[in-house]
């Protein structure tokens, strides 16, 4: 039995008819038509499905869509500084080669945003700790960490998230 569920996604209030058993990840990708958030394991091991829900980063594969009723969700599609302008974090990932195959990238960027909102001045250790739940098979993480630290540095110089 589908239920009508409303939530705010990337600033827009939407109403979706969803079955109770469907995860937030699948709701965003199917009903929401937002495929930027990826399914890497579907059991909460890899972090590819990270979105920000009510200000907190979560594995959307472990959240039921219906749990998100009334929630505020941010996904990768909502991250841009302006029309056609990449977000600060996205810009740094591009500059530093933080994305190779690109599959883990949306999840890591959302986790990075959550980190920098809570701690705009992280040490390298804190960055590594923050993305500990996001698996990347290609890069070996070094460039990802560089990109996050570069974003933090720009925040210190007055840019905004």
């Amino acid at each position, binding site marked *: 039995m589908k239920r009508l569920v409303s939530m705010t996604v990337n600033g827009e209030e939407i109403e979706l008819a969803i*079955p109770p*058993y*469907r995860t937030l990840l*699948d709701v965003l*990708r199917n009903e929401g*038509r*937002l*495929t*930027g*958030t*990826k*399914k*890497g*394991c*579907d*059991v909460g*091991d*890899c972090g*590819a499905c990270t979105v920000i829900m009510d200000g907190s980063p979560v594995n959307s594969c472990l959240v039921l869509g219906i749990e998100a009723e009334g929630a505020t969700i941010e*996904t*990768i*599609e909502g*991250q*841009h500084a302006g029309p056609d302008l*990449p977000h600060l*974090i*996205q810009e740094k*990932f*591009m*500059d*530093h*080669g*933080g*994305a*190779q*195959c*690109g*599959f*883990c*990238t*949306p999840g890591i*960027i959302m986790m990075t945003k959550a980190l920098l909102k809570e701690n705009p001045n992280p040490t*390298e250790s804190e960055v*590594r700790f923050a*993305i*500990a739940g*996001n*698996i*990347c*098979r*290609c*890069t*070996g*993480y*070094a*460039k990802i960490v*560089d990109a996050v630290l570069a974003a933090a540095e720009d925040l210190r110089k007055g840019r905004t998230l």
Partner: protein
Amino acid sequence: MNEAAPLPKGNMGEPVARIDARLKVTGDARYPADLPVRDVAHAVLVTSPIARGRLTQLHTEAARAVPGVLDIIAAGDVDGELERPQFGNSGSTSIAPLHDRRIWHDGQIVALVVAETFEAASEAAALVRADFQAEEPSSGFGSPGIEIIPAAGASPLYPENPEAGDFDAAWATAEISIDETYSTPTQHHNPMELFSTTASWFDGDVTVNESSQNVTGWKNTLARQLKVDPEHVRVVSPYVGGAFGSRGPMTPRTAIIAHAARRLGRPVRCVVTRKQAYTTQTYRAETRHHIRMGAMKDGRIVAFRHEGWELTSRPDNYVVGGTGTTARMYGYGAVETKVSLVKADRNTPSYMRSPPETPYVYALENAMDEMAVALAMDPVEFRRVNDTMTEPIEGKPFSSRSLMECYDQAAEAFGWNRRTRGIGSMRDGDWLVGMGCATAVYPTNVAPCTARVRLTADGRIRVQSGSHEIGTGIRTVAAQMAAERLGAPFWSVEVEMGDSSLPPAPVSGGSTSTASVCSAVMKACDAIRARLFHAAVTANDGPLSGLAPADLGIADGRIVAGARVEAVANAMERMGVGEIEEYAEFAPEGSSADAIANLYKGKLEMRMGEEGAKVKYAFGAEFVEVRIHRLTRETRVSRLVGAFAAGRIMNPRTARSQLMGGMIWGVGCALHEATEMDRHSARYVNTDLQDYLVPVNADIQDVKVILVEEKDTDVNPAGVKGLGELGNVGTPAAVASAVYHATGKRIRDLPIRIEDLL
């Protein structure tokens, strides 16, 4: 210029940022399971819980009763409509899961459930009941019931065991000898993107969206299985979420899904769970090695024997045969090798990142370190004594070899001279410190390739080649090649890849892509240049009239000869064209006359590094520092330095990414990665990313990649040596050597576990 984009040296290209980086960071890069497909139905695989036996009956009533179920396809349902898969040549296995009732391995596909939603299909799949006549399986090395056969001749990939001289005689003369066994475990690629197939038919034509390293091979293989002409099949894979070899061979699932879509009259999508991928996709087989090495006191190796055993399935003889590389690595005296296949009740393995080198060079480089210790020689000097510019098997020269240059540069950057030789002699509080080094090597393979390039009067360039962007940056380097040859800015180049309707390219495997694709792109660009230059010099009244074409160049959208210039747009206007498009075919030296025709048919003729008048390899040297807690034996790699020489570096940024990612992969290989098995049931146990330990955000703070300048015009026209599979080859042995240095324990079996060090 930042750390990510170092200044290029010598014959290196510009470290431009990846051409598709933006799409990836915005989430706009679409992987196959992201594509919106109208009316798509969802399929879920049902797999066998036993490893050996026969499927006797399938009960599907409960499954069919689940609301939303559209179809259940099982063994026997495909007869006449689907051909059996073939092993080799883009097919992962001959096991035909929906043709046969025989069970060859755990997790074999026994049925496919198709439903309106993914959840309905999953629910129904869980309700399918299968009856089996189970037999006791052989799970791997040492199991009762395995079959051992010589690898030489069992596969076209390994025709013979390389050898030279009289090993027994030389072995008898050796003053110091090493006689040891080594092993590497089963490993799975575990790319981040889940495996999936989406198939849609329209008017007799099928489009398959699936991440692939081999769209042309798959197109042909799929057509044969579907019993249609290849012209009716298109495989599309513009973005691949990691591959490492896993997406090279096509598995039986692809044709099954295409068939399901044809049967249903609706598009079908199947996203395989990560767990099911362990048994329905491929993997790196476990290996064992027995090495005998005899040397004189001055360090010269006079006798080298490498025997290897590799696991494979019962029906298919998959072999990696890394003796082809280890037999040629140093200036040995006599060489003897042998490889055997061990057949067990397992799914068919296939290639995974440096398939022959990872296990075989691990064994050899461990033995090298053991010998250096036995000789009381510095491991770097021991390599120096045995360095050679001529390989020992056929006496052919290396087209180039900068191994010792790599060792020397890496040793210096690493601070190797701070190493004190005594076991456990270096400490930092509660941590034992160990330092080790090893050689990295990978053959320079190159393959036939085609490309189409178009230059328009407004300066835009389009490059088309059916290669595959799997995270290596090939799109970027192809764009760089075109931009450079056609004198245009990098951002004016658009690259289309990953589509079997494009001019075919070889499988993105064997690290051939940069060399092969760039060579073809270069040829197409040169054809465009030839047309432009011809027009410029034969013009009645142009600024470059009468000059020799050889004196012309292109830069910044202008044809130039010294002070004389003509804008490309002007030249084209005089030619009466708005664009020039050229298609080119590249076949490496030594290819057969049918090489390109075969490429179109998905039959690849790869020219391997050891073939030809000169042997072609990329080399590197890797140095590792480990820290081991004296009580818990927790092992961390604290520093990594790798220096690599791979001919012309098209893009230092993407090259460094590949090498750095490779070295970290190598650390995971040394310390973490292994697929565990229940030996009794022959079933994989750690079939998820929680218990299969890939390198997570590890404590490796300090990774340094040095690109050593090297010029080689023999390898291929582009002068490029593949390096995507180079960085991970030396790391495991370097780690093992460092662990020995710290603890005195020589761990010969990967992965090195804490318990091994207690």
